[in-house]
């Protein structure tokens, strides 16, 4: 049976892709951000996961408003990174794991989560920036795991509740643990956040106190966070801070017993309070 090694969260700001391309690791603006990742690189090197479940939110590349799935699961042999409208160079395709995808889809639907399966899914910065951060040179890192993308809707309200996101993660845990590949090692990513708002007169809104509250509770007390309503989340985390949903989905997949290996929090990167967190599952 498969094993879940742990979960890693990170912000997925588009500007990070650009900073990586330009190797701005020691630039004074970027250093406090990139300093959050070496411990994660070490952990990944020590554990070498075979599969990475990348829980992110699409921002208008893979999906449009014509059809907007609340929860979508990739089931492709590979995932192409494409131009998001800014003319930036695209990365090479990421190798998929369709047999794991279909196992997850079967298990989730049997568990009464009605998901959308995607045999083609172009992936945007929400998916690729975390891969680049955790596996430098992705997708050509020598230990690059095969991947299953899972996207949740945060583009258009109604978005899922935090309670549903956590429950989704818990059902995902059941699915992963029952994957019948001996000793398969899986890591789960939750990408996006933390507080930020891009639109309206309140653009630029960041909320350190609320982010710290979320970071504290997500480690050992994620159920506490399910009391936050969606509109309260918009109010306190900013209109795009709703991406915290992805962190909750990841958290649900890890089980109750986790150890925090590292965290980092920095304001601002681009318009965003950036955060990263690595939680290891009990053996």
């Amino acid at each position, binding site marked *: 049976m498969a094993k879940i090694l742990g979960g890693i969260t990170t912000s997925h700001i588009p500007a990070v892709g650009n900073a990586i391309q330009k190797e701005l690791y020691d630039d004074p603006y970027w250093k406090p951000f990139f300093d959050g990742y070496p411990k994660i690189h070490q952990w990944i090197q020590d554990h070498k996961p075979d599969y990475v479940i990348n829980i992110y939110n699409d921002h208008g590349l893979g999906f449009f408003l014509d059809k907007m799935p609340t929860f979508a699961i990739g089931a492709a042999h590979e995932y192409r990174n494409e131009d998001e*409208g800014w003319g930036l160079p695209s990365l090479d395709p990421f190798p998929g794991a369709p047999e794991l995808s279909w196992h997850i889809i079967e298990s989730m639907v049997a568990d009464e989560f009605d998901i959308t399966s995607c045999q083609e899914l172009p992936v945007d910065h929400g998916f690729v920036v975390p891969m680049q951060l955790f596996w430098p040179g992705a997708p050509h890192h020598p230990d690059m795991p095969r991947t299953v993308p899972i996207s949740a809707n945060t583009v258009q309200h109604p978005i899922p509740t935090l309670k549903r996101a956590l429950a989704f993660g818990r059902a995902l845990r059941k699915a992963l643990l029952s994957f019948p590949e001996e000793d398969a090692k899986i890591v789960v990513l939750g990408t996006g956040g933390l507080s930020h708002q891009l639109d309206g007169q309140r653009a630029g809104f960041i909320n350190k106190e609320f982010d710290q509250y979320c970071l504290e509770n997500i480690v050992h007390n994620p159920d506490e966070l399910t009391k936050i309503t969606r*509109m309260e989340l918009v*109010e306190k985390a900013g209109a795009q801070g709703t991406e915290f949903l992805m962190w909750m989905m990841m958290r649900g997949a890890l089980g109750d017993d986790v150890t925090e290996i590292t965290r980092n929090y920095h304001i601002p990167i681009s318009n965003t309070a950036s955060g990263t967190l690595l939680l290891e599952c009990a053996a």
Partner: protein
Amino acid sequence: MADMPAFDYHIDIPGTTIFDGKQAMKGYALNKMCYSFNRAENREAFKADEEAFMEKYGLNDQQKEAIRKRDVLGLIEAGGNIYYLAKFAGIFGLSVQDVGGLQTGMSTDEFKDYLKSQA
């Protein structure tokens, strides 16, 4: 479509437009045009003839006027969603800090200082 407070809808968050079903219906043509800007050939076609491109996507007068004026708040009012509008802003090489400044009446540098001040 009526407001549905029972569904956690529409509390007033100053300076924030909740992009819900009402906005999604209102802004569909505008957002569809901006979504098309994922492709370079559509960005080029827009630059070559903005009016014809807007006509092709069926934008209404309010949306056309906001596009002509590069009025980000006007585009949101007309049903635009920021993730698609970011692709429109990208045509002009605008960053999210530029767009933040445009919406808050700050220069880009003032907006960046505002972000830093919240650390």
